[in-house]
């Protein structure tokens, strides 16, 4: 028999960015909160001595242990889904801090077009522009309504950016106090490295509008409203895949979680995997979890259950708990698992410069320059047969030697041996990349459900991903790849290797991005969405499902600022719910 633990006001499942924000907001208000986290606990001591490429990047020390839980995958419903046995396309987080402990910190807001994509597309191009199998939906909230929550997230994390980003980036208000002045960002932008400057000069010459990538790698010492002081980024080049030993990278472990702990109202219980939400008649009473060290089963009761366990487990927990209506791609009814989206990340150009060496071993997770001229609806789509678009950027995250052995596209160059060795040594510092990050719009056949065969270590079915790239993605990828080539030529590269001109089937073996979205999407209508704009479930008003699982599609931007903004809004909703009860909209 599972042991019952003392009841709490709120139980949070998964202690990453979303869980951490909710924990800090609610404990500050005096509520008793417990966070159950399947992985280990973390503090700054875990981040020291961390410049180890093999341990963290190659062997993925900080990521989910796939021996315990993974996804199964197929491109379409006629295929048998098979487990992702080793790391490939994405790296879900694990342990306190979640993927927020080892993200890059590129912190864009989604654009106004994203939140009203359907209405705005119809308004500008007519309904006929939307393909039959593409269920794009408005989010049930506008950019203007979400703006104060973006600002809360940015103030907490100390996001840095350029005051004048030009006309293409999502519009910002000057609301952050800095030495008596109002600014659009809490702190200034990152430094501009030579490769960024080359990109910015070339794109300006081409008539585009580059700006410095907004960053969660703190650009100057900063103290936020919670009283957390952090030091500035040292451009140490061990950022994504790593914890930051300076605490300069905004991460739940050095921002929201200590604030929650300081209230005395927050308990984190690591090594605790939640396997089910308990509920009857549209009300949840708590969750069942396993201690992953002893195997013991426990029940944690609470007035409010918050799922913040990332896209895959948010969906999996609902389906395994039989909570909410599962999506069916044939009838297009049901909502849980619907609109799983990803990112169109392959397009770009690898540039090789015979006469120029870059200090590319140095860098920071969010050091880069970007153009949004082809993102969102920033350009006229009348003459192209895809919607939305993507960002193009040069990032200098720090090239590490195991992963980076670039060779230019020269005929007959072998893949190993003397000639190859000499080429990799020559071109290592002479190579930079323009990367495209395309939006991923929903397709009715891209969805998540439960796998009929494979289970986790507790016998619970794994999540099954059915996903492929469709016409929309292929055309978008080609478009961005051609633009990347154009920019590469303008930058006078000696050799250019263009990627993504022909986007094949989605392949789970190759890393693309950990920007998985959808499955528990938000909206105005319980028929087409699972949660409202507070991320409160339509089918169980004391269950909130928070994270990128709420995105009805994915944009050409990285997701976390939008996850953070939605988490702040959800926290507000949870408090309102505890006080007033019932549906919030």
């Amino acid at each position: 028999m599972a042991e019952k633990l003392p009841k709490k006001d709120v139980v949070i499942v998964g202690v990453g960015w979303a869980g951490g924000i909710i924990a800090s907001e609610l404990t500050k208000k005096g509520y008793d909160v417990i966070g159950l986290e399947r992985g280990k606990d973390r503090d700054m001591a875990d981040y020291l001595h961390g410049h180890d490429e093999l341990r963290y990047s190659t062997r993925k020390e900080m990521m989910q242990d796939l021996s315990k839980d993974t996804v199964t995958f197929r491109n379409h419903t006629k295929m048998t889904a098979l487990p992702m046995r080793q790391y490939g396309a994405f790296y879900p987080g694990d342990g306190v801090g979640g993927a927020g402990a080892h993200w890059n910190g590129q912190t864009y807001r989604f654009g106004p077009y994203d939140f009203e994509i359907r209405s705005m597309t119809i308004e500008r191009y007519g309904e006929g522009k939307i393909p039959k199998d593409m269920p794009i939906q408005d989010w049930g909230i506008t950019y203007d309504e979400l703006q104060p929550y973006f600002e809360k997230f940015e103030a907490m994390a100390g996001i840095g950016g350029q005051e004048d980003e030009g006309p293409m980036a999502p519009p910002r208000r000057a609301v952050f106090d800095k030495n008596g002045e109002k600014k659009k960002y809490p702190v200034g932008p990152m430094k501009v490295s030579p490769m960024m400057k080359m990109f910015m000069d070339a794109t300006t010459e081409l008539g585009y509008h580059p700006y410095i990538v907004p960053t969660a790698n703190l650009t100057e010492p900063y103290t936020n409203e919670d009283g957390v002081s952090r030091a500035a980024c040292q451009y140490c080049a061990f950022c994504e895949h790593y914890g930051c030993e300076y605490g300069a990278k905004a991460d739940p472990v050095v921002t929201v979680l200590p604030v929650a702990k300081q209230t005395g109202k927050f308990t984190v219980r690591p090594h605790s995997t939640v396997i089910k939400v308990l509920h009857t008649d549209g009300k949840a009473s708590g969750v069942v979890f396993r201690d992953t060290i002893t195997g013991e089963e426990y029940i944690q009761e609470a007035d409010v259950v918050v799922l913040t366990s990332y896209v895959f487990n948010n969906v999996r927990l609902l389906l395994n708990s039989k909570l909410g209506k599962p999506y069916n791609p044939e009838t297009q009814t049901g909502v849980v698992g619907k609109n799983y989206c990803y990112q169109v990340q392959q397009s770009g150009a690898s540039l090789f410069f015979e006469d120029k060496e870059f200090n590319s071993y140095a860098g920071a997770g969010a050091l880069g320059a970007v153009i949004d001229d082809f993102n969102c609806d920033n350009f006229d789509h009348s003459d192209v047969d895809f919607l939305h678009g993507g960002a193009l950027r040069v990032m200098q995250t720090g090239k590490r030697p195991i992963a980076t052995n670039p060779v230019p596209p020269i005929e007959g160059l072998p893949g190993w041996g003397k000639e190859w060795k000499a080429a990799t040594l020559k071109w290592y510092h002479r190579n930079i990349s323009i990367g495209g990050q395309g939006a991923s719009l929903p397709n009715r056949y891209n969805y998540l459900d439960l796998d009929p065969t494979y289970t986790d270590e507790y016998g619970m079915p794994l999540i099954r991903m059915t996903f492929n790239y469709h016409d929309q993605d292929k055309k978008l990828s080609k478009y961005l790849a051609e633009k990347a080539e154009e920019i590469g030529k303008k930058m006078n590269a000696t050799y250019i290797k263009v990627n993504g001109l022909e986007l094949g089937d989605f392949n789970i073996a190759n890393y693309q991005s950990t920007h998985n979205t959808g499955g528990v999407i938000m909206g105005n209508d319980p028929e087409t969405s699972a949660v409202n704009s507070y991320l409160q479930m339509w089918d169980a008003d004391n269950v909130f499902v928070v994270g990128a699982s709420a995105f009805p599609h994915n944009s050409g931007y990285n997701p976390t600022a939008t996850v953070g903004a939605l988490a702040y809004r959800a926290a507000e909703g949870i408090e309102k719910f505890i006080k007033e009860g019932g549906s919030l909209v």
Partner: protein
Amino acid sequence: MSENKETFTEKKSTRRNFLKNSGLTLGGIVLGGAVTSLVVKNNDGETTVADSHSSHGAETSNFNRALMFFNIEQFLTVEAAAEQIFPKDENGPGAKELLVGYYIDHQLAGGFGSNAKEFRQGPFLKGEPTQGNQSAILNKDLFTMGVAALDAEAFKLAEKKFYELEEEKQIELLQKFEADEVALNGATSKQFFNLLKKLTIEGVYADPLYGGNANLEGWKMKRYPGSQMSYVNIIEKDEFVEMEPKSLSDHQ
């Protein structure tokens, strides 16, 4: 911070000291990072980071040069094969001198050899190329089979072990493995070849704490500075900045 750079280097600052002496603070709670006391202002008013002292140089013997997985014959073949992937040339040492053979041996003896962090539940079905590696074979078994096959092919060719063949013949055989022309039990020779190449590159460039990249020669050859504390003062620089590489042991 009150301490200046001199006092820091004098103190032989280590990460353990940072832990003790510094901290991110939140209403009195020390979060314990390599922060404030480490980050100092230099004369130009630029933020910089105090250097830590190198503890290198006085090495007498390397007790790491011993086998925990292969037998000596297997080891010689692995060393020879890795050397063909990453050979010694005018740029610097090859896999053998960098002790890549020992690196591979140690990796296969540990969690990686037994695919510890991978999903191992059956059924193991063949799958489509887009579904990633679906093999039931453990890394250590694939490697041992591959090495045995290299030796078997060498025997067919010249009645020798792989490591006894002359260079051109070794290359020829590895090309054959890469082209998937040799049958292995339940696996392809290309799978083995890919694992060999992957582990060779790791052994050349991983921190020397894992047994390869001897004397940081892999990094020196690549002009990679290893584990530095800060690049804040070079990130805007136009010219290429070369520095003496540091390993994690410099920070102990």
